[in-house]
């Protein structure tokens, strides 16, 4: 009796998700699986194998993989340091860490553009110090930098979350049974934080794989990722069918990633953001 009443409270959300999630998804599938005359075709999906598209997809996979790896290597030690701090200390650090996220994503990325430019802030300082200029703007390196900068918090939070859930006595028990520092890390801490690591990887890898803003701003028009190709098909070539087809291919990669996540993340660490 009361249950049905509570279910009614979900109505606005269901309407929202129908209009803004289900319908657009249906449209993507409709456009992706038809040609301009409206007949069914798989050509839009297959076109990912053309040299131009597969190169963009390959580069996107490579860059997002690199960015994810760097994020993981930076985030894990950082999370461990945070976890070792006392409550009043770490909440301050977490605040400093999250503060930039309150600023617009576009603005933050444009700021990096200004910093990295040939005559930008960093190079001005370098030349003032008599050092050789940093020429990474409009290269894949700048894109990786942008990805790491923007998505690092999404790696830190789930890992920190799973670290903080470990009972200190479990670590003590391992020490008590004779394990040294490294053994405790590899046999206890790391395995127990796998769910957090997997969540972090998903939350960095997916937005990195599909981004076109970071590659636009920091890669100029010289580096083309799959996200840029999709964007161009919609905004410049006005070929919604091809753009949707490539989006579906991207979705497959995301789906694979999410299945892996679901297998490892049974406790739902990633959902706690």
């Amino acid at each position: 009796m009361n249950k049905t009443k509570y279910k009614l409270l979900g109505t606005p959300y269901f309407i929202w998700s129908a209009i803004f999630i289900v319908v657009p998804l249906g449209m993507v599938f409709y456009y992706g699986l038809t040609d301009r005359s409206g007949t069914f075709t798989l050509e839009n999906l297959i076109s990912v194998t053309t040299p131009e598209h597969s190169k963009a997809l390959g580069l996107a996979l490579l860059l997002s993989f690199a960015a994810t790896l760097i994020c993981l290597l930076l985030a894990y030690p950082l999370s461990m340091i945070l976890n070792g701090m006392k409550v009043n200390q770490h909440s301050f650090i977490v605040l400093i860490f999250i503060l930039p996220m309150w600023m617009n994503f576009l603005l933050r990325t444009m700021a990096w553009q200004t910093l990295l430019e040939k005559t930008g802030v960093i190079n001005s300082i370098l030349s003032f110090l008599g050092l050789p200029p940093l020429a990474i703007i409009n290269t894949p390196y700048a894109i990786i930098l942008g990805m790491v900068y923007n998505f690092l918090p999404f790696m830190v939070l789930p890992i920190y979350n799973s670290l903080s859930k470990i009972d200190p006595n479990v670590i003590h028990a391992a020490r008590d049974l004779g394990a040294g520092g490294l053994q405790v890390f590899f046999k206890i801490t790391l395995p127990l934080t796998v769910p957090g690591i997997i969540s972090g990887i998903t939350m960095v890898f997916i937005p990195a794989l599909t981004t076109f803003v970071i590659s636009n701003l920091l890669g100029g028009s010289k580096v083309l990722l799959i996200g840029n190709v999709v964007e161009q098909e919609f905004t410049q070539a006005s070929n919604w069918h091809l753009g949707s087809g490539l989006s579906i291919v991207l979705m497959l990669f995301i789906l694979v990633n999410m299945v892996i996540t679901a297998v490892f993340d049974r406790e739902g660490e990633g959902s706690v953001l």
Partner: protein
Amino acid sequence: MNRILIDLQHITKSFDGQMVLDDLNLYIRENEFLTLLGPSGCGKTTTLRILGGFETPDQGKVIFDDRDITNLPPNKRQLNTVFQKYALFTHMTIAENIAFGLKIRNKSKAYIEDKIKYALKLVNLEGFEKRSPDSLSGGQQQRIAIARAIVNEPKVLLLDEPLGALDLKLRQDMQYELIRLKNELGITFIYVTHDQEEALTMSDTIVVMNQGYIQQIGSPEKIYNEPENAFVADFIGDSNIIGATMIQDKLVEILGIRFPCVDTGFGTDRPVDAVIRPEDVILSSPDKGRMEGVVTHLIFKGVHYEMEVTANGYEWLVHSTGMFPVGTRVGLDVDPFNIQIMNKPASEDEEAVKTDE
């Protein structure tokens, strides 16, 4: 008497300026079941953590087997700990949990498998090798935690309130299990608890602690029957602690009535505390007792009745198998050897605690 295995010398420890242990001295003999007993915050767990190596004392030494181990890390100590909430490794099977310490010591596969079998048999959980810790009940998890510790053949097993999270019936069963284990293994057990009944049941020696000080060390019988101060008397079981005057050796005046007793050496006409256990108060008809009173409360407790009797201005707690309805006039008496005389508290930490325990 067995030889001394562990010697804590002048241990002092404080956290954030708060003194937790103040010049603690304690030795533990080989093969002894020693219990650190006291209310929360008395320093018993800190003492255990110093023994395990998880805390370093600010001052003092920990001597183990004639070696100074004060600064030795936990993984280099020949002791193993059983933690309060089991602290099992949830990402491993039961067998992997038990094998953890042995694998680190690079024992052979055959040896490890033998040990797992032996340990599971010892804790009555044969056939649990492949199970995950999450699928076990609290009591079973605690047995696995014990098995995981004892396969390493430690000289000493430290137990930090291991039965605290279990229900009453299971707790009583586990108490017998622990006594059996200790006798079979022939190793030293150091047990931390706030439960006086647990301490009385299992221990060879009880160390009663309060506010960072040791209040009394002794056998369960001695601690119960001859508490040295009001704190111990009050913490171990129920008791009537009454201000009294020691008239002379073997004669004490309680609430204006003179009682013969067995204590000597307190001087003459000195204020003392007299401790009388509720089960030692003898109720009879009004004309027969040394004191006369009125029953004011009556509760049936199963084994006995619990009564409150007001006599000479004091509310006596009485346990008796005989029942006296509320309002009955009764006579009170106490046998001389059931009156325990104590000096008045010298400091605050020796005073009786007013808790609901």
